[in-house]
């Protein structure tokens, strides 16, 4: 990062142009940006960062934080309903020349039924353990809830980590929820 860019991030106040067609949403986002301590400027004025939703202004060369949409070339991509904290963090990051991606920002698109790898399928018991894990339960609490031994909980956890390719509990929960989202089918 250049020295100038580093100073920019540390500066309390960035100039942000909010390019949103819908007036009500533009006002709302302007308020979010202002409350985070930045200066909201007109699209044509000097701005450090552009905040846009759906589609970025054509020919825009300044760093853009997108809220939703499939325009994956932009520096910042958040989901349409990103919260104020995420918007502020993304604005500061792209101003510093970084690329920001929220995991749920890229719309899922029209996909195929995946026939998942049979070896990596979870068992119903492992799904129970995962649900408890997602609630932040300790191994002891999981054992109590499922009325199984602590040893068995550890056994299921090891198997879960291996099948999901995860190293931590948080990672296991994240990977499983991603899998559920992409592999749930409706009949």
């Amino acid at each position: 990062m250049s020295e100038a860019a580093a100073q920019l991030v540390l500066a309390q106040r960035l100039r942000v142009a909010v390019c949103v067609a819908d007036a009500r949403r533009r006002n709302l986002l302007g308020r979010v940006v202002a409350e985070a301590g930045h200066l909201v400027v007109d699209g044509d004025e000097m701005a450090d960062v552009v905040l846009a939703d759906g589609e970025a202004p054509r020919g825009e060369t300044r760093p853009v934080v997108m809220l939703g949409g499939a325009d994956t070339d932009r520096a910042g991509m958040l989901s349409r309903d990103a919260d104020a904290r995420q918007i502020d963090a993304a604005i500061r990051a792209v101003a510093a020349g970084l690329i920001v991606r929220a995991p749920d920002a890229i719309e899922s698109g029209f996909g195929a039924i995946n026939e998942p790898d049979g070896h990596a399928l979870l068992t119903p018991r492992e799904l129970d353990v995962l649900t408890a894990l997602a609630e932040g339960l300790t191994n002891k609490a999981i054992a109590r809830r499922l009325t199984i031994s602590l040893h068995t909980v550890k056994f299921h956890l090891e198997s879960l980590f291996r099948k999901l390719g995860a190293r931590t509990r948080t990672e296991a929960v994240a990977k499983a929820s991603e899998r559920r989202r992409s592999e749930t089918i409706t009949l």
Partner: protein
Amino acid sequence: MTDQPDVLAQVSTALVARAAAASNTVVAIRLGYERHLTGLVWQSDIVVTSEQSLPQRDEFELVAAGGTVVTAAVAGRDPSTNIALLRLATPLSAPVNGAGEAQTGALALAIGADGTGGVSARLGLVNLAGPEWHSMRGGLIDRRIVLDLALARREEGGPVFDAAGGLLGLSTFGPRGQVIVIPTATIARIVPQLAKDGHIARGWLGVALQAVAVPDALRESAGQSSGLMVMSVIDDGPAARAGLVAGDIMLSVDGTSTQRWRKVARLFGADSIGRKADIRLIRSGQVITVQTTITERHAA
């Protein structure tokens, strides 16, 4: 330079001509201020586009070649093949496009509407041309066609042509921003049904399922190593009426093993509506069979 124009210039000139000729095959579907989606003019009074990106509205304003504004009513939507059909209030001059043949490595030209009556163009390769596939929503797509070109949101839904000018289909976004094509054959199959009924009839049980491994102790009685676990049951749907509950593991539907999702999906075509289906499942450690009656699925 000799007086013979070089090959690259010839290719470029041909592409310019193709893009200009495509102007009457696309319309801009206005979504809001300075926002639009592209539509493909299928017949003089019918436009098709990408269903997933078309907002739930009854009517849209379209900008046709040269800037003519026409209104169109949504006449049908099929999320399973990602095709939406719009019927124009005033017919346009319909282009005549033969179907193209997708081949891996061949050139593909994707055309979008620019919103003012002109076109935008994208050139790339057919990254992959594969066999038919089933979408997550249960639709049959005649060929898997993946492109290696970039596409803007506003260009989605427009035509994709092969080098000979044949229509490969309409462009859309697959998972992770991948650009894929809904083939001409699929559009040709779906449009008449959509125009007639407004939707594509499909069989329905009213369950959300996720693949799970069958616990070791039950593999022998189940006769298979994986099944589809019921994650949720829709109130008053056929599955609910048959007493299915979350946690049941479906092993087969009318003898077709749920280890093969695609084969199961195929059992739920329009002809399945009203048919009785035997579902073999694991519940509380027992393998049992319940009977359901498949009903028609309405808008997803």
